[in-house]
């Protein structure tokens, strides 16, 4: 499990957070807003055009969250609830109406293969489809530091450059640690669709990290 996944499953921490929010703990609120800002902005931008409008949607969402805090029943997780409000507001506000451009159709954004076909052997070869040259062994290479700040920054840049739907899914799943069920529920997409988007996103980010690490 990644750190993100662990954070997502910490129910007792969430109950504690909710209690603190309800008693007006500003530090808790500010932390929450900061924590989710980038993802909320990315999600909003899959429904509305332009960063400024997306920022307004994010702000309106938080205002609604503040108003609804006392009534929140905890049936969904806090962050799922917040994201659902965001998606509703974004859809309402969206230049592209949800019905005419369903999220699922954004999966057609790109059909690029995960790895360039030239890196595999051709059909006349004894081993068609096998690597021509193996990719790097990042665990073993002493000079490759996958956990360092440079690499994380490269991943951040790669994610920010993704097409909207892919960016949303990878942010929710891998950056924030939402489960696949939560992502499908909030974005109203099928499990399969969500997985395709996740696959493309991860493949692209890996490719960027490979350029960054292997030169």
């Amino acid at each position, binding site marked *: 499990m990644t750190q993100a996944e662990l954070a997502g499953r910490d129910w007792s921490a969430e109950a504690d957070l909710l209690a603190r929010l309800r008693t007006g703990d500003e530090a808790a609120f500010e932390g929450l807003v900061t924590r989710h800002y980038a993802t909320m902005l990315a999600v909003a931008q899959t429904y509305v055009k332009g960063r400024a409008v997306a920022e307004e949607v994010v702000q309106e969402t938080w205002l609604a969250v503040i108003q609804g805090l006392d009534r929140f029943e905890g049936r969904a997780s806090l962050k799922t609830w917040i994201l659902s409000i965001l998606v509703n507001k974004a859809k309402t506000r969206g230049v592209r109406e949800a019905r005419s451009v369903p999220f699922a159709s954004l999966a057609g954004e790109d059909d690029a293969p995960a790895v360039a*076909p030239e890196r595999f052997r051709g059909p006349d070869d*004894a081993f068609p489809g096998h690597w021509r040259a193996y990719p790097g062994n990042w665990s073993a290479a002493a000079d490759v530091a996958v956990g360092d700040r440079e690499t994380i920054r490269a991943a951040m840049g790669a994610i920010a450059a993704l097409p909207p739907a892919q960016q949303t899914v990878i942010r929710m799943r891998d950056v924030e640690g939402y489960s696949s069920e939560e992502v499908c529920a909030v974005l109203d997409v099928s499990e399969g669709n969500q997985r395709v988007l996740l696959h493309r996103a991860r493949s692209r980010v890996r490719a960027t*990290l490979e350029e960054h690490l292997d030169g």
Partner: protein
Amino acid sequence: MADRRSDQDVTCQEVVELVTDYLERALSPDEAALFEQHLNFCDGCDWYVDQIRMTIAAAGRIEEEDVPAAMRARLLAAFRDRGRS
């Protein structure tokens, strides 16, 4: 030209497309077994799957973007006013 694909193996090219399904446990038991058998003999694909895992881990460590100051101030004010309305 004979079709040299084998049903007893997945190719590396297939592995890099199946990796997300594998990690999400969405492959059937037979497909997952073929996938793992391939990883067992193919270092390249073993390393590739590890690269994807490390990509996921790197994503999980991304730092948050700063909230614009004006938005932060407005939201904090609204939060403070919550009890008073």
